[in-house]
């Protein structure tokens, strides 16, 4: 009862927005601030816990990435020694991202890199180059822009550390689909440090280009074995990209949640100040009323 009457006294506070129904507006203000404060506090709890979870996942993801990268490096050894003679005409783009959000600019960085590569004038690629997307977030971004180029999309990868089984499954489906290509360009996020990443590509040539390259022709390989090698090296490259992308995602999510928690904390401080000032003004007004009332007697 006393609180309500004191809230009504906040009418004496100058309102920055002008003088229209003062009583009602300022009564709502203190209550409003309280509600906002409560909701921002809850949000801060959530973002802080998400940050903790992402940090623990990051440690594990980084370990997996370091061991998975070795597969990718060993893989690319072959292609360094057997460069293809003719530049690849038709490229298949495989975009590596994930299904979950709240991780900063991971998905848009990969989508933008893909769009840039397709629109590139220096190394022109076909305007209808097929694109395959791993991960729902990039899928929706690319489907808005280059939906005609999409050939296949994959999801349910990235919930946990990606396994080689995931990569082998993707490579299998790529091979079995009847998409024509000379080489495959895998677009993923490269892990630079715990606070930064950048989009990068791995290029994998297909079986025919491998057979034609001079370095390869120096040896007599059976066609079957060459095809096996091409398939396996695709799975390797996809695996390396998947684990590295996963590590980038965890680090980006940790940074994003960290920033969000900091911002929420700043908001809480500011709102608390505002709330206390309002409360103290109300108390002061009540005191003034009481005193003037008493002195009038």
């Amino acid at each position, binding site marked *: 009862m006393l609180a309500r009457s004191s809230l009504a006294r906040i009418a004496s506070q100058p309102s920055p927005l002008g003088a229209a129904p003062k009583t009602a507006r300022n009564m709502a203000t203190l209550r409003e601030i309280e509600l906002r404060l409560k909701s921002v506090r809850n949000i801060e709890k959530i973002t802080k816990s998400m940050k903790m979870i992402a940090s623990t996942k990051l440690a594990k993801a980084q370990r997996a990435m370091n061991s998975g990268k070795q597969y990718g490096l060993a893989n690319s050894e072959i292609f360094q020694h057997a460069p293809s003679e003719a530049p690849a005409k038709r490229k298949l783009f495989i975009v590596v991202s994930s299904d979950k959000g709240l991780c900063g600019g991971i998905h848009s960085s990969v989508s933008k890199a893909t769009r840039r590569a397709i629109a590139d004038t220096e190394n022109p690629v076909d305007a209808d180059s097929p694109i395959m997307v791993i991960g729902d977030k990039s899928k929706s971004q690319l489907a808005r822009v280059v939906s005609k180029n999409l050939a296949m*999309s994959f999801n349910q990868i990235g919930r946990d550390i990606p396994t*080689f*089984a995931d990569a*082998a499954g993707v490579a299998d489906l790529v091979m079995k689909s009847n998409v024509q290509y000379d080489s495959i360009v895998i677009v993923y996020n490269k892990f630079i440090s715990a606070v930064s990443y950048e989009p990068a590509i791995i290029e994998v040539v297909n079986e025919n280009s491998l057979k034609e390259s001079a370095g390869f022709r120096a040896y007599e390989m059976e066609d079957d074995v060459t095809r096996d090698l091409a398939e396996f090296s695709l799975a390797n490259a996809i695996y390396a990209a998947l684990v590295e992308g996963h590590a980038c995602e965890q680090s980006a999510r940790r940074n994003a949640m960290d920033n969000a928690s900091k911002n929420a904390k700043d908001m809480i401080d500011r709102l608390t100040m505002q709330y206390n000032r309002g409360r103290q003004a109300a108390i002061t007004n009540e005191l003034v009323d009481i005193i003037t009332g008493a002195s009038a007697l």
Partner: protein
Amino acid sequence: MSSATWRNVFTYNKYAQITARAVRQSLKESERVVAEKRGVTALKYQQWENGVGGQQVFLNPEEDKGVGKSAAV
């Protein structure tokens, strides 16, 4: 071994996954549990035609517990 007929049926990756599964299932119990985690995949994929996504299907249907996503995008 030169006339391996499996090449007509599936790709090398599938062949490798099948043999890996056989190896994992033959391990001692404690090692097997650890190794099984490395073979887990819940991959789903969908074909796209002309900018429209098709039905999303599981790569390994026996893992589908009926809580799959609905068709198209």
